[in-house]
């Protein structure tokens, strides 16, 4: 059984008189020791999906469907049970290490806090464990770092501390929301390597949310591509990168600047802009920007299997498959 199993998840903004579904019926799973990516642009619902797993949706947003973690349905848990899961069985790594840490508390105290709270450790024991964690995330001079405040560290070091906090109670699932977006390229590389090592060592699952195709390609085994609140395509990362099926994924991969490296070719840009949740139409949301769109696209296509381990939601799949691969 998968560690995390999400079935038919809807996330809804309720306003009196009108509701908007920002996430519309997505299903996916993450197994132990597996790295699954959610790829998408701003407003596609990828971060909200992560927040809903943690029960951290902002006020006014509601999740419906089923989120099973270790066999328990998270959506039916009350706040207290969720609190014990959060930071204990599920660790969260946020995008902005500068704001994820408390500026007036030393790094050591911040890592020790969940240990004392969830694992019931004493003060000394928690400090020793914090030191062990700082060593594990390969922070230079871990002993000195215990008594340092976050602002005295660099961005990369802070993100390491955030990861140490997420790891503190040996979670079986890690959720990382754009963990390297705020970091420099060389530091990003180190953090990504660290995450890979940790997954290998601890056999915990990792749900990695990113808008960076390169990060997604290198890190994940399976990927869900989201557009406008739905999964348009999912499957093994390598197959999706080399042979994308959905017109959106195909267009995205043709628009990546890396594609033009070492040549004079022009990138094929995607016309139009990402639709805001409030201006979403019925049917396939990508159809306004899609070169293949036809009248049938006004009906939402279902995710249909494409080969043994992949699915894609597009009426034009037969045509795409008939033509040469992208």
């Amino acid at each position, binding site marked *: 059984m998968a560690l995390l199993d999400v079935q038919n998840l809807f996330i809804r903004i309720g306003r009196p008189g009108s509701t*908007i*579904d920002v996430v*519309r019926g997505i299903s996916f799973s993450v197994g132990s020791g597996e790295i699954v990516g959610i790829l998408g642009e701003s407003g596609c619902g990828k971060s909200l999906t992560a927040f809903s797993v943690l029960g951290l949706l902002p006020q006014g947003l509601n999740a419906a469907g089923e989120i099973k973690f270790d066999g328990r349905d998270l959506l039916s848990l009350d706040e207290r049970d969720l609190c014990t899961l959060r930071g204990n069985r599920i660790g969260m790594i946020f995008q902005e290490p500068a704001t994820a840490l408390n500026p007036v508390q030393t790094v050591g105290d911040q890592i020790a806090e969940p240990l004392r709270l969830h694992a019931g450790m004493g003060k000394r024991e928690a400090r020793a464990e914090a030191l062990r964690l700082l060593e594990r995330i390969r922070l230079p001079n871990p002993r000195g770092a215990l008594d340092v405040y976050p602002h005295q560290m660099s961005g990369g070091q802070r993100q390491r501390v955030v990861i140490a906090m997420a790891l503190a109670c040996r979670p079986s699932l890690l959720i990382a929301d754009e963990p390297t977006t705020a970091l420099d390229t060389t530091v990003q590389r180190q953090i990504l390597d660290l995450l890979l090592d940790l997954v290998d060592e601890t056999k915990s699952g990792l749900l990695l949310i990113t808008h960076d195709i390169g990060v997604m390609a290198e890190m994940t085994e399976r990927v869900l591509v989201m557009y406008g609140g739905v999964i348009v395509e999912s499957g093994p990362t390598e197959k999706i990168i080399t042979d994308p099926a959905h017109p959106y994924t195909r267009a995205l991969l043709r628009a990546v600047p890396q594609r033009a490296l070492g040549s004079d070719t022009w990138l094929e840009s995607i016309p139009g802009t990402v639709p*805001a949740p*409030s201006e*979403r*139409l*019925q049917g396939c949301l990508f159809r306004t920007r899609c070169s293949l769109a036809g009248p049938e696209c006004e009906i*939402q296509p279902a995710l249909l299997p494409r080969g043994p381990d992949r699915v894609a939601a597009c009426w034009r799949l037969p045509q795409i498959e008939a033509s040469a691969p992208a």
Partner: protein
Amino acid sequence: MTTIAEPPAEVVRRIRLFRYPGLTVGGVIVTTVIGATLLSLVWTPYSPLAMNMRQRFRGPSLEHVFGTDQFGRDVLSLLMAGAQNSLTVGIVAVAIGLVVGTALGLFAAARRGWVDEAVMRVCDFLFAFPAVLSAVMLAAALGPGTGNAMLAIGLYNIPIFARIARGAAKGVWVREFIYAARTAGKGAIRISLEHVLPNILNIIVVQATISFATAILAEAALSYLGLGTQPPAPSWGRMLHESQVFLSRAPYLSIFPGLVIVLTVLGLNLLGDGMRDALDPRHAQGR
């Protein structure tokens, strides 16, 4: 699959009308108060200064809607006439504080460095004097009266506005559109007026409504000390203060001036909030 159906045009029009309920309600209240004040210049139910010892402490009745006070004066007439005083004090005191304070705050934020430090230290110095104390000093120098009370309260408002304007302006100065304006060769004064001021106006408008309320109350306190409006000229603050003595005997004497002050302040607050929203292009035009 949800779609957001376009609401019919009639509904849209109705929503537009009530898009700023605060603005509407606040506008009605403020207009009523100003209307009553203007009316008092030419007409009040009774002469606000006419005493009638046989009619003392009459409760609200058809004859005297808000009752009469310890000298038998008609409270409604007093309130209408007192509005002239209180509104003038509020407007002038806020205007002094707003104009001078905002200018100082904008200046400090634009110049940064030691100029900023100096301006803010002077403001701290001004801030350290309670309004009453500076009014006492001014009164000692210039003599008591409504004018000096307004000046004193205005002076007290300057550092408040200066601080708020400076804090908000500093936040605007680090935004990229300021860099864009600077690369266009605009100077600090033009940037302050064209870019910074419009972006901090909402905060200042809200502060103005708050300061207006405190100005009316401060004037009351000064009048109480004999430094503000001189008797027998009526003012809301003085009425509130003088009625305290008769609180158990004639509670309505406190209730009505208090209610009028609260309503006026509430109206101004609503108006200020509504104006803030209406001034913001993000609210003014739908998406």
